[in-house]
């Protein structure tokens, strides 16, 4: 198991602090969990705790950005995208201010805290806002580069991060390219498109499908918005069937984004692996992934279903 993406975020931020003097970090009483405490320790004069007040967290960041700063704000994804949704929409995205929202503890794998803390709607909420860029890194390496990209990019960015250690997908030579899907395996029978921590699971599923005689292309879509239309259309044309995988509701997230691209450009059978429009519950991350259909076996089943639907 590799490092958690939130851990990689904290380390990247600490590193970027030296290069970008205008980076200011804000947190809402969760800095030990979001790992912004690493930055706070190194740059105490550029770190501000706003307390348990997410609306003001985002609004203050908007003001800092309006005055030329590069604010990174962090809290759990449920509070960032939910409690502060309208502040993100009206105070950040409408004026296109240079605010970075790094939301941790996304998805079911928050675990034991249960449904109130499991953001399974945040990709959906964030990608619907004009001017917003949405990035969901798969592992620590990709997170580091995504955060570096966000610091240099001018405009609002939402980065979705996880609590648990994520299996390493990429080596040291990996190069993050904003808005470009990453092909991790070649195949002819179908394409599995995954994001975030499900990328590693998708890869394992592809391996298992090989045993069953199916060859699957695997695409990592780290940038949900703007989405890589060309890569999705090529996958549809080349393989004729798609499975999407995300630790998020099947409504509005990666699966929906891919479906939108497919129906308009290259309609092929699609199966969506994700949380099936239900709330989560308390439990270990693994128990939750198993109960809510986010395992290798779930992807394999979806793959077989989708291939059987091919004309």
């Amino acid at each position, binding site marked *: 198991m590799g490092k958690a993406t939130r851990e990689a975020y904290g380390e990247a931020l600490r590193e970027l602090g030296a290069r970008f003097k205008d980076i200011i970090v804000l947190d809402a009483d969760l800095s030990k969990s979001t790992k912004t405490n690493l930055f706070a320790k190194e740059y105490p004069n550029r770190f*501000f705790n*706003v307390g348990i007040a997410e*609306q*003001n967290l985002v609004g203050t960041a*908007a*003001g*800092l950005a*309006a005055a030329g700063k590069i604010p990174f704000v962090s809290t759990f994804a449920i509070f960032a995208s939910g409690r502060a949704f309208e502040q993100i929409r009206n*105070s950040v995205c409408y004026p296109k201010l240079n605010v970075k929202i790094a939301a941790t503890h996304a998805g079911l794998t928050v675990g034991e805290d249960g449904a109130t803390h499991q953001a399974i709607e945040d990709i959906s909420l964030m990608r619907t806002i004009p001017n917003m860029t949405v990035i969901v890194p798969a592992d620590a390496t990709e997170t580091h580069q995504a955060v570096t990209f966000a610091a240099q990019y001018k405009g609002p960015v939402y980065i979705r991060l996880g609590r648990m250690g994520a299996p390493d997908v990429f080596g040291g030579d990996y190069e993050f390219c904003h808005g470009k899907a990453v092909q991790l395996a070649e195949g002819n029978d179908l394409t599995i498109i995954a994001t975030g921590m499900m990328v590693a699971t998708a890869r394992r599923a592809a391996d298992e499908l090989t045993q069953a005689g199916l060859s699957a292309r695997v695409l990592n879509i780290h940038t949900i918005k703007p989405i890589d239309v060309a890569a999705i259309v090529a996958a549809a044309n080349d393989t004729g069937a798609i499975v999407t995988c995300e630790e998020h509701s099947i409504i509005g997230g990666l699966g929906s984004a891919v479906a939108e691209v497919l129906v308009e450009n290259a309609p092929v059978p699609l199966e969506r692996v994700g949380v099936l429009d239900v709330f989560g519950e308390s439990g270990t991350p693994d128990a939750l992934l198993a109960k809510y259909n986010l395992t290798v076996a779930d992807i394999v089943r979806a793959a077989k279903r989708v291939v059987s639907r091919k004309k």
Partner: protein
Amino acid sequence: MVAQLTPAKLTELNERAQAVRRNIVAMITEAQSGHPGGSLSAADILVTLYFAEMRVDPHSPQDADRDRFVLSKGHAAPVLYATLAEKGFLPHSELLTLRKIDSRLQGHPDMKGIPGVDMSTGSLGQGLSAANGMALAGKIDERDYRVYALLGDGELEEGQNWEAAMFAAHYKLDNLTVFVDNNGLQIDGPVADVMSPLPIPEKWRAFGWNVIEIDGHDYDAIYQAIQTAKTVKGRPTMVVAATVKGKGVCRMENMVDWHGKAPSHEECTLILSEMDD
């Protein structure tokens, strides 16, 4: 007495405010949509800020050292646009495009389009947080600009204000001066009846702010509050300004109906001629 406006300045402010008020009425009439009551009540505060105090230059609207103004009660956009036009940020002719398709003058201020608008606002309760961020950036960079914001009294019902109130006091943002346009009315009636935010000064004092209570139509009082706030160290200042909704247009004064209603063209002609008297 900290400082005083000269008689010449007082005359100027009076004339500027009169021009701003006439433009508010004219532009809302032309749009047949907008919020006259809360625009008129804030006119004297904005005019005093822009013509007696704020360090802003229409030729350099993005100057990093400029003073900032955040109109948190964004529905009072007409008073901001009219004041910015008076100050030279906008051509006066453009005011009549308010709320029309393709205009920069959106129903609520959009900072992307208009020089001199420091923050996009309109969803109530969000401006003070943004003003906090600007004031904090000034502290971090050791710049001497000041940040001003204007809140509505009804707007204080939004919880985000109180998150922001805590923040500004906690981080000792003494470069921040905020006004409450305390006109006593909101859409559904008197603020005291709809959902009372009273007593307003006591609440801000309890949150650690320096609080000044003034008549929001008295230029000297507004100016002195601004000067006093500049001398206060370690605390932000809240100026609770008693105002009259619709101030300056007799038929609109203290009338809740004129919160968000446009005068007819006939009424507008009548109002403008009454204002001449």
